């Protein structure tokens, strides 16, 4: 029973994070597409990308471990929670 409650709560939490991520993704859609599918070859698709990968890349951009003239400034505006929400959102898209 405890496991069932845990699974339900986890699922709900994921959906809440994903919804929060959708609201925060308004800036991202200009390059990565409204559904996380980029129409241009310079920028990657994010829909269905592994959550851990998105988490690492965005944190790396923000903390200057990875540098890019577009992504570095954008990610500077994000908190840990923002990154978590965005990763949940894009990884939940198919």
């Amino acid at each position, binding site marked *: 029973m405890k496991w069932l409650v845990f699974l339900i709560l986890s699922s709900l939490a994921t959906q809440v994070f994903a919804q929060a991520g959708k609201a925060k993704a308004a800036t991202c859609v200009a390059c990565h597409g409204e559904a996380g599918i980029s129409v*241009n070859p310079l920028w990657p698709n994010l829909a269905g990308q592994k959550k851990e990968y998105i988490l690492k890349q965005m944190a790396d951009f923000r903390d200057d471990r990875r540098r890019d003239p577009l992504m570095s400034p954008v990610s500077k505006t994000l908190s840990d929670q923002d990154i978590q929400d965005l990763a949940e959102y894009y990884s939940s898209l198919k």
Partner: protein
Amino acid sequence: MFTQGRSAIFTGLIAFSSAFSNLVAARPEYALRTGINRCTACHYSPAGGGPRNLEGKYYGSAGFKLSPFSAQQYAGAEVKFLYYSPEKRSEVRNGLAAMAGSVWAAIPLTENERTTTRLVGEQNIGGFTAAGPRHLYLQIADRDGLKKSWIPQHIQFGRMIPPFGLMTDEHRTYVRLQSASAWNQNVAIGLLLSGNPYDSLHYDIGAMNGGPLNDGSRLSAGQASQWAYLGNLRFQPARGGFLFGLSAVHYDAEVGVAKTSRAAQSAYAAFSLHRWTGGRVPATLLAEYAEAVNMNGTFTNTFVSDVTAYGPSVASTRSKGILGQLNYDLTAKVQLQYKFDSLILDSNFPADAYDRHGFGVKHYFGPNMWFQMRYERATSSRPGEEAGIGAGAIDAFWTVVNAAI
């Protein structure tokens, strides 16, 4: 369409539409939303505006897919069409016309680990502005697009649009008119140094030679040119959702002309309601205040109705202009706009003012293609302009269609 029989209309539109004729310019609302404080993220010039790099082309495509021909960063073209319909039907400036057209190329010359040297050229091919080079400069650019240093990261020499005030594709404003900074043929050829000592702080300083005379006429071959010195400082903290900037340009006195030198200053700001509300209010507020002295050759042209006495008299006075604009993104491709601008031609006579309210929409309908429609309600408190005689006091509807590759 324009015909031979409507040459007077065409001539009028040429004079009137300088304020329309600029091509691609940076859009500070995007810079604010993304926190990017470097115009070179999308444009070749660190001053913003003009030819765009590949990232800029893709970003400007508004989510539409670029054609293989456009999807390169070495060449491009742009064209603008204008339909202008003043409420005063006897106004000679009306109709549909090709407003501006240009082709451009950005040619890399040398490249090493630290810098890229390139030649950037943009040629006007038609429209209201006479054919000729709009940009033609040699640029040395630091390849690290994120370097933080007081040492310039971009050095460019040649003909270019210098930074002054809010660099947007919104040209029909009094602050652009009074400071002659929309089409910027006032400062033509020179040296520009730009850099970011911090991510949040950007500077441009330059010295340029050439430009129109105080009476608005252009320099011709053999005439002495003026030197102009300009500076621009922009502060935009990554998490702030706002930017604030100061610009100034000062000209040497004209050779052989008994007038004081020309100058203009601008304080400008932009606020991202989108950022402040977590995306719930997808809007951006733009604001600018500009002063100019001896820069008002355009006023003697068609802006005021009295071009024989009042126009020339205000050409050497200090003018004050205000711009406020609210852009609301209804969708990713449709933007509602409200614009207010106000102008006092002579700061000694503040009652002689022009005010204009504009309501409109901008729609992106293809990759780097958009149209913009606006109705503008203009009023003037200057005696003689109540009937909407001068161009600055005429209610009007206009549409601009822009396409770029």
